[in-house]
């Protein structure tokens, strides 16, 4: 099986990363209503190198974004 990011054949590890999204909107009557087309799932299967890179970048970027939002 090949890594879905770099395309290299995976040997020792394969790490599945899944993003599950469920979205709701606040209605005029102050209740929540699901947005079905924005409730979905996506997936990558990464080799160990790509996963390590992904984890590092995600952590770094998310913290950076958090600081930006807080400011």
């Amino acid at each position, binding site marked *: 099986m090949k890594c*879905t*990011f770099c395309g290299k054949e995976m040997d020792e590890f394969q790490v599945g*990363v*899944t*993003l599950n*999204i469920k*979205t709701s*909107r606040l*209605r*005029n*009557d102050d209740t929540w*209503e*699901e*947005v*079905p*087309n*924005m*409730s*979905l*799932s*996506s*997936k*990558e*299967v990464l080799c160990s190198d790509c996963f390590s890179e992904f984890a590092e970048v995600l952590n770094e970027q998310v913290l950076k974004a958090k600081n930006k939002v807080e400011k």
Partner: protein
Amino acid sequence: MFGHTNMLILKLTRDCNLRCKYCYIKNKDNFKGEMMEFYTFKRIIQRIIKDRKKATYPPKIFTLVLHGGEPLLAGHKKLRLFLGYASRKFEESGVKHRFSMQTNLTLLSTEILSVLHDYDVTVGVSFDGIKESNSSRTDINTEKFDTHFRELTDFNINFGFLMVVNKANINNIAESLDYIFKKYDTGPLKINYAEDVLGVGGSEVTGKEFFEKAWKVVLDRFLEKENTKQLEESNLSNILERYFSNIITKKNNIEYMRSNCGLKICGGGSNIIEINPDGSVHYCGRYSEDFKETYIQNIEDEEFLELKQISRYFDTVKVKHKILKENECDLCPADGICDHGCPAFYYSKYGKFGLRKDLVCEIFIPLYYYLVKNEIRLFNKLYETKKNQDGIWYLNLHLNIEDEWIDNITKKFKGYYVERDKNFKTENFNPQIAIRKK
């Protein structure tokens, strides 16, 4: 992209041999001779297969719609090349698929018929009805269209009709329905309302006219005609199913359905996408031109966790949510059955997102009251036309079934009952309820 998108509107070309007054594609003359290259087509098919392979829950069936402009301008050789490639690649990769095509049919030939037959293409025929009904589109007469319909029948090709209601056919709906259903053993046709997207004028009818002279005509025929085999229009068929689902569950089933068109926040950009001949991916095929705001990416662009598409779609969700709030759609009695207008048409016409209240509310609010006033008769008639040979009507509820809903049916619709344990179908994402008559 194709991990969750289940329908691709593939514009082989934006060129067309007709110039319908109500067509929404801008500057068609600029696209003369435009045609998708085989290389681009192959890259699209490869991308579909690659994305589906890594998806957790890819949609069960992928639908590839050959669209345009006029897709038959591709000619029989190119169509065979494209469909043959897609068919072989999908089979090899286990992608369950459906091919369909939206065409005006005027360029049909024996060679094209054989391609449509060989690759089991379901054909959506644009046909506005009999007599002068097609005068907004062409001077080709009903007899010529009729020859093509017979050819489709002879080649055992599955086809249905798309009728766009406009000033030329608004007064002929019943007559056209009689003509179609007497001659052809076809499923429900689709009746859409024309929107004068390009501001040409002379085609759009009011929402009130559309309801009174098109959809209400279909519903009246359904209720009044004896031995009716089906509700003759597919949008109404979906709306009725939604209406009764909402009554039974006492919830708004719109919240639980993924869909393409006709939903409160439509699936353009998520469930359904459009690809142009140059491989650019857009929200859906109904935008009049390539707007920057509706562009998602190119078919060649890399993506991680489909995040590019998801974030672009979320942009539209936010805008549509604001529009729904401003127009107080959540508080409207027709909210549960309304299509909330086509955002693509609105954007194409006004350069921003919005809602044609004059059109949408004039159609769906009277429709809602019609359904309320006639719900028992409609329920009875639907049962008669939808029941299978065992006398069971399976109704989609989109939700896991609760005990209380069973009581709702028996209380509200006397003479009917539901056998709970035997008849629940939960193997797909749309749980169904089995309705029987006592």
